[in-house]
């Protein structure tokens, strides 16, 4: 450009304006300063994050979560502070939802089987037309002889799935390897409630728990942990007292003030023994109609058969366990339980997983009537019905009897279509049921899996149509157990699937199929979001609860922002009248536990399996953070270990790291020995969860010596009257294999022993005694 006077003035003017503008925009003080080299990159936080409310799906209890999203990627999961059940807190499992989202082994596209069934050979196909056409053809041909197996469902997903199978004429079963059926039945029989109750630990003064590992894996551990913290050291209250009566020293038992090791299967007898002491010494809470509860004089007579003197030898209690006479101990425990009100009795886990599990749990829960804690503060709290008339607030799961029936149906050709979502029954059912073989050999069977990951069941599929994972999808849930009032959680997609993934939402696929099969009248929604939106509008029209809004749109937005809706004024029943003669009825049901297979004998051990703290029944086995999280007691990671008493181990010549073989009448597995002082000498314990044979390397890359599935050796003993698997009702023989491996655990090679507050030199000596 030629420099003229006119140009010069124009540029000078622009320059001046620019200078003023830049000054106005303001380069902030400090930005031009030289950075100090000791400042960490963490000091230079830039960018902004968004937090979205949603729901956690890494365990059956539903927690409210918030997810931190930056630049279109989910970065962190935390508890939703507003959500009533977990109140901002999470379990270790919740955090690992991110790894499910960004897992390297996600199935990217639909696939169809290209090799023999179960070989794991698949070819990618497109959703349209191949994937959807195959599904539609299968539903058209065999919908009426189909079985849909899902995770236990509640909320609109349960409604949708149930309506879908009803429309096509099939059947749906929820699958839980360690199901709550016996607990549910006990709650129904004792309290006449259809959904699981809450336990108000926060306000309780005395917790008496039988077999329930409620701080680690049982029912709703995050909620129970939240209450337990307050139970221990909450402001404005005294410290609560906690007894755990359990055949295994679980994480929950470790947190008890006193652990009482009971012979497996005798928990119900102990509970009735406590009831007998309370009744005979007239210790029940004021207002409790003992005569009606016990069933008059005949009831008292029946209850007298459970006097501590009779029960103590049956339950295997010794003076060493109770610090003196066990009879006096039981009496004193009953007195403390009755005196320190509000007190609460909880039963579950291995106590309900015996042939007499239902009797055990009923006897345990009936104790709550005697101490007046049913429906009351500090006791058992009941949950109200669903805010939507037709939407289930309680999940259902098939019993072992159901699974045996389904296996037979597959084998006989009666079931021709298997639809799988969120369930891995081949891994989670006893091997002796032979579900895998039945599926593999059924020529007329067509198997469709909607799993985003390959597992032991989806590897048997003919067609895989990968679902979105929960951080990418819509959903809702009714927390079970709720906190004693109506709570509905909402799940929203917080990120899109990564570009190389092509999943489709499972409920959307079902709705599309319903339309294509002409079932719109049963399922009239265009997509699952529309269905949920209708649910939101129904909540808005109730004109109550936690969300304030002047329009249905505003309500929907606020609902998603808050992560759910709840109404603290809609409580469950606060009083439940026990059936006349309840204790007598229960006592008359009493039976001793049955151990099929080897039976009771000196050469075998009680096998008390337990849900893994993070992997649960194996559902989370593909998530590396959860594989790598040390077990709270053994600190073992990545491997299957056998807990056995260290004195027993010594007498057998077994040391830590030795590979043991556990044999039942059904089969045998191998696992790593972990001797501890906290196992009864006649018992061994093995976690569920490992031993997957197909799918992600994180779950499968170990040999059978390191990772085995304890389900493979369980006897198929049923819990009487519920038909569920009595998973703690197996006896095994233990033998050495002569092999030994390095155990993968957090603790060091020398056992860490608590020695209290002692001067420093002694601490060092005690931690490493042989070096002292």
């Amino acid at each position, binding site marked *: 450009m030629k420099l003229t006077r006119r140009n010069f003035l124009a540029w000078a003017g622009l320059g001046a304006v620019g200078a003023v503008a830049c000054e106005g925009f303001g380069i902030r003080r*400090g930005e031009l300063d030289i950075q100090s*080299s*000791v400042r*960490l990159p*963490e000091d230079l*936080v830039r*960018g902004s994050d968004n937090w979205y409310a949603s729901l956690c799906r890494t365990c059956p209890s539903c927690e409210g979560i918030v997810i*931190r999203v930056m*630049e279109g990627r989910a*970065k*962190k999961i*935390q508890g939703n*502070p507003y959500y009533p059940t977990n109140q901002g807190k999470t379990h*270790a499992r919740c*955090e*690992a939802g*991110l*790894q499910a989202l*960004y897992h*390297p082994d*996600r199935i990217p596209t639909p696939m169809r089987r290209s090799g023999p069934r179960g070989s794991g050979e698949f070819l990618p196909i497109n959703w349209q037309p191949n994937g959807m056409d195959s599904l539609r053809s299968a539903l058209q041909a065999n919908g009426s002889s189909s079985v849909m197996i899902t995770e236990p469902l509640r909320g609109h997903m349960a409604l949708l799935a149930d309506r879908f199978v009803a429309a096509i004429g099939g059947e749906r079963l929820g699958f839980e390897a360690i199901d709550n059926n016996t607990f549910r039945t006990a709650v129904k029989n004792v309290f006449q409630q259809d959904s699981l109750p809450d336990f108000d630990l926060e306000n309780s003064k005395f917790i008496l728990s039988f077999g329930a590992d409620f701080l680690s894996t049982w029912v709703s*551990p*995050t909620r129970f*942990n*939240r209450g337990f*913290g307050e139970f*221990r*050291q909450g402001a404005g209250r005294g410290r609560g007292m906690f007894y755990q009566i359990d055949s295994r*020293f679980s*994480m929950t038992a*470790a*947190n008890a003030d006193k*652990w009482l090791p009971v012979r497996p299967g005798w928990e119900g007898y102990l509970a009735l023994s406590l009831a007998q002491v309370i009744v005979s010494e007239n210790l029940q809470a004021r207002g409790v109609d003992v005569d009606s509860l016990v069933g008059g004089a005949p009831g008292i007579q029946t209850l007298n058969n459970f006097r501590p003197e009779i029960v103590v030898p049956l339950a295997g209690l010794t003076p*060493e366990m109770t*610090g003196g006479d066990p009879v006096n101990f039981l009496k004193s425990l009953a007195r403390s339980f009755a005196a320190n009100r509000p007190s609460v009795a909880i039963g579950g886990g291995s106590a309900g997983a015996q042939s007499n599990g239902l009797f055990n749990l009923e006897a345990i829960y009936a104790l709550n009537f005697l101490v007046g804690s049913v429906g009351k503060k500090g006791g058992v709290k009941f949950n109200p019905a669903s805010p939507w008339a037709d939407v289930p607030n309680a999940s259902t799961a098939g019993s072992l009897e159901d699974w045996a029936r389904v296996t037979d149906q597959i084998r006989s050709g009666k079931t021709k279509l298997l639809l799988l979502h969120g369930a891995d029954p081949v891994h989670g059912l006893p091997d002796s049921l032979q579900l895998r073989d039945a599926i593999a050999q059924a020529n007329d069977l067509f198997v469709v899996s909607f799993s985003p990951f390959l597992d032991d069941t989806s590897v048997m599929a003919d067609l895989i149509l990968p679902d979105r994972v929960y951080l990418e999808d819509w959903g809702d849930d009714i927390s079970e157990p709720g906190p004693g009032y109506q709570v509905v959680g909402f799940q929203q997609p917080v990120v899109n699937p990564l570009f190389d993934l092509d999943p489709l939402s499972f409920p959307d696929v079902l709705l599309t199929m319903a339309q294509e099969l002409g079932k719109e009248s049963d399922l009239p929604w265009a997509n699952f979001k529309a269905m949920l939106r209708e649910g939101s509008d129904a909540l808005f029209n109730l004109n109550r609860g936690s969300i304030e809004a002047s329009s249905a749109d505003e309500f929907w937005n606020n609902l998603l922002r808050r992560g759910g809706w709840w109404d603290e004024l809609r409580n469950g029943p606060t009083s439940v009248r026990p059936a006349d003669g309840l204790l007598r009825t229960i006592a008359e049901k009493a039976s001793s536990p049955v151990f099929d297979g080897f039976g009771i004998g000196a050469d075998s051990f009680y096998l008390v399996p337990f849900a893994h703290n*993070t992997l649960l029944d194996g559902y989370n086995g593909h998530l*590396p*953070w*959860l594989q*790598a999280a*040390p077990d*709270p*007691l053994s*600190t073992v*990671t990545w491997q299957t270990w056998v807990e056995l008493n260290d004195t027993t181990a010594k007498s057998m010549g077994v040391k830590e790291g030795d590979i043991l073989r556990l044999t039942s009448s059904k089969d045998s597995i191998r696992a790593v020995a972990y001797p501890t*002082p*906290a*196992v009864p*000498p006649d018992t061994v314990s093995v976690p569920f969860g490992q031993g997957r044979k197909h799918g992600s390397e994180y779950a499968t890359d170990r040999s059978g010596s*390191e990772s085995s599935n304890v389900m493979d050796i369980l006897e198929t003993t049923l819990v009487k009257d519920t038909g569920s698997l009595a998973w703690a009702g197996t006896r095994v023989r233990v033998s050495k294999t002569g092999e030994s491996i390095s155990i*993968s655990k*957090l*603790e060091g090679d020398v*056992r860490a*022993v*608590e*020695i*209290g507050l002692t*001067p*420093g030199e002694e601490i060092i000596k005690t931690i490493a005694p042989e070096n002292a």
Partner: protein
Amino acid sequence: MVTQRIDHKWGMVVDLDRCTGCQACVVACQAENNIPINTKSFYQQRRAYHWIRIERYWEGEFPNVKAKFIPIMCQHCENAPCEPVCPVFATYHNDEGMNVQVYNRCIGTRYCSVNCPYTVRMFNFWDPKWPKSLRNQLNPDVTIRTRGIMEKCSFCVQRLRRGEVNVERRGIEPLTGERIPAADRKLNYRQMKEGNYLPACVQACPTNALQFADQNDNTGPVKEYFDEANEQIETRHQGGHVDEAHTRVYRLFEEIGTKPNVIYLKKVEPFPLDKA
């Protein structure tokens, strides 16, 4: 310094009577701080990365047996044994009571690790590895540590900085987004909770066994315990006697004089086992 920071002195309180050993803090820390996946061989080699870990101690023999859990993380000592031995000043004490690791100074002598009585320093023997897709989860606020670098708990300094930036420099109230008057711009406990500025372990802990705040914040949950602990130190310094039976407050290895900024509250034992 780029900006003049408001004085803080951060501190953590661990209530062992509340801790159930559930591992929520451990996984939360892994997720927040880009800690490599602890493989089976890491554990077998005793090289697993845990900025916070739950130690389990057995007590007694069957049937009178107990297990106690104690979460251990960097104690952020006032007299940190790790600091004076670092030849390159990669670990130093900042003005907020934190023991800080400067990754780009660290040359990997591991002297600090040897000198730490709490065994909370982790050395990167190898470059961390994540499958490509899992890298999407990595926290952009936290540096990935490479081979040859020492790392440890930072009290989630990135969260504290975000809190300081948002509340103290920009004056934004976390929940409402309202402007905070200049005179009131000091990050308090409520704002830390509402803005997700608490360390990840504290935020996750379902029993509230872990508490974190400014030691001088009257509204926070830690001040009373630090006041008591400091009083104990003063009493001992002057030759007085602290009645251990009537206090739950203690610090790990207090007798070696490291003055940690983490306080433990003893577990209450209604039925102590006979240790004789």
